[in-house]
């Protein structure tokens, strides 16, 4: 673009001021990238939730267990296609709380109801054949440097074994790939429920929650009500909700992350808007005679309008690109520490959203100066 060098030179006419403004935009967009990555990680489960899958857990608390006998009763509810279950294990690995999900499940049932978890036939067969077998997400295996055949000892914090031992040793039989939840889903270890149930000291025959697949997603709500109605007067009343609602409720235990992120970013962007707007207006005031010269030389009003607007857009987009790049680099550098929270990278959607914000920022900030520049009369501008 032949005008680029002119726009670039105009932008850096006052180097110090432009660099300081650029830095503030860079910091704002770096913050945007990091906070949105956190937000995405917390809501990753909700985004990846299956519309025709529901979660049935205790009505009163997520930590109350449900009897495994409910599985057959739930399966008998009209509209229910399949039922599987899982429980929270928690635990520590190498003296640190495990920063990944550890869930006892029945392999065939669980993989059947969650087709997004892809395992090879060999891994599936090995898992069924190995009572202490476990499959781990690809990214978790890579991060922990676990390989097939490794024995992984986890120290339980909730579930001691019958002999009082807190150490549970799992044999890694393979990995799974989660095709949906890129942010969180690979960061989990699944092991066999029969091993868990037989070996644990208490709670035999209980599970954490059921995954319920319905025939028709449009009937999910009524099916959920029918499930809960069955257990309404029992000692273990249930609450059935869509997987998305469950994931959102789980994330909200930590606070309304989306609201907090929006509040912080709203403040930051408002400040940036005012700051950058002021810089652009000041830059325009200082350059009125120069704009008059451009018009004298034959630049049309529209051309001058574009030059000023593009300058503002360039500033915003450049700052955003650098900020998002730094945020990506920062997450990359802290990958080990952050992956336990499901923060592994900044998604393309966040980058695209950031660039759209930058574009809007550039337009908002540049529009008024551009209009002013367009309306300048040459004779007045040259004498300014």
């Amino acid at each position, binding site marked *: 673009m032949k005008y680029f060098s*002119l726009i670039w030179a105009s932008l850096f006419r006052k180097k110090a001021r432009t660099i300081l403004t650029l830095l503030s935009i860079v910091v704002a967009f770096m913050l945007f990238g990091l906070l949105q990555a956190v937000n995405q990680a917390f809501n990753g489960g909700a985004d990846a939730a299956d519309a025709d899958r529901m979660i049935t857990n205790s009505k009163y608390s997520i930590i109350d267990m449900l009897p495994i006998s409910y599985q057959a009763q739930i399966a008998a509810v009209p509209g229910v296609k399949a039922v599987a279950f899982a429980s929270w294990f928690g635990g520590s690995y190498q003296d640190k709380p495990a920063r990944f999900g550890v869930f006892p499940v029945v392999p065939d049932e669980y993989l059947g109801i969650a087709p997004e978890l892809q395992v090879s036939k060999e891994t599936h067969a090995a898992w069924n054949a190995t009572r202490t077998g476990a499959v781990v997400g690809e990214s978790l295996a890579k991060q922990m440097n676990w390989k097939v055949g490794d024995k992984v000892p986890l120290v339980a914090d909730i579930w001691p074994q019958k002999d009082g031992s807190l150490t549970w040793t799992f044999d890694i039989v393979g990995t799974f790939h989660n095709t949906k939840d890129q942010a969180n889903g690979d960061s989990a270890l699944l092991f066999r429920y029969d091993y868990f149930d037989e070996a644990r000291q208490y709670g035999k025959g209980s599970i954490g929650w059921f995954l319920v697949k319905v025939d028709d997603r449009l009937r999910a709500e009524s099916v959920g009500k029918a499930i809960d109605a069955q257990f309404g007067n029992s000692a273990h009343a249930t609450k059935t909700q869509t997987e998305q609602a469950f994931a959102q409720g789980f994330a909200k235990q930590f606070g309304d992350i989306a609201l907090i992120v929006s509040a912080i970013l709203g403040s930051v962007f408002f400040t940036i808007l005012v700051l950058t707007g002021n810089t652009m207006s000041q830059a325009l005031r200082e350059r009125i005679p120069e704009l008059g010269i451009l018009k004298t030389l034959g*630049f*049309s009003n529209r051309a001058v309008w574009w030059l000023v607007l593009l300058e503002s857009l360039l500033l915003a987009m450049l700052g955003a690109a650098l900020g998002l790049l730094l945020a990506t680099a920062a997450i990359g550098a802290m990958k080990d520490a952050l992956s336990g929270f499901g923060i592994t990278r900044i998604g393309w959607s966040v980058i695209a959203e950031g660039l759209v914000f930058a574009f809007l920022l550039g337009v908002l900030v540049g529009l008024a100066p551009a209009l002013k520049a367009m309306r300048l009369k040459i004779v007045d501008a*040259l004498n300014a």
Partner: protein
Amino acid sequence: MNTATLVSIRNLVKTYQRGSEKIEVLHGIDLDIPKGDFVCLMGPSGSGKTTLLNLIGGLDSPTGGQIEFDGDRIDQMGSGKLTDWRAHHIGFVFQTYNLLPMLTAQKNVELPLLLTKLSASQRRQNASIALQLVGLQDRAKHKPSELSGGQQQRVAIARAIVSDPRLLVCDEPTGDLDRKSADEILSLLTQLNQEHGKSIIMVTHDPKAAEYAKRIVRLDKGTLVRDPA
């Protein structure tokens, strides 16, 4: 209009509105500038010299009368057409040079060529030729702040001639220069007039500068005092 006439001005009136008051700056000017002329416009401050120059250069529009440039009525052109016409036919030289401070001499000279369809290399080449013509090819990479006043005015002249306009409009081109630099600039303008056929209209307060022109036109209180042509 005579075919030898480049600019023909008839009954030109310019009025400015200041609040509720109307101020007539030019009162019915008639003036012809032949092709190849080098005319000097003189007169006391406030006599309307710059206003007349701005109207001839298409930087402003008259309130009444007509301005014809080589057969085209520029007083009847709309803003867009006038902008285009200016880019093709007029080169401007100002007292304060009016170079863009963040661009090198070369880039300043290339500015008018951005409006053409020339390729980047052609623009560079044409700008180099213009800088060579004003004797500043060795200063092409320098920014205005790294040049003397005389050198900056030479760059401004190179910018004015780079798109090969027919008329150079110069508003006190030596007003900010010492005598030696002023003489160099005036000699350069004379050379452009005599050797390259550029018509020139120049406003000045300096009688010595006026001596370089082929003729002098005097304005007083918005009226032409004498036009020896």
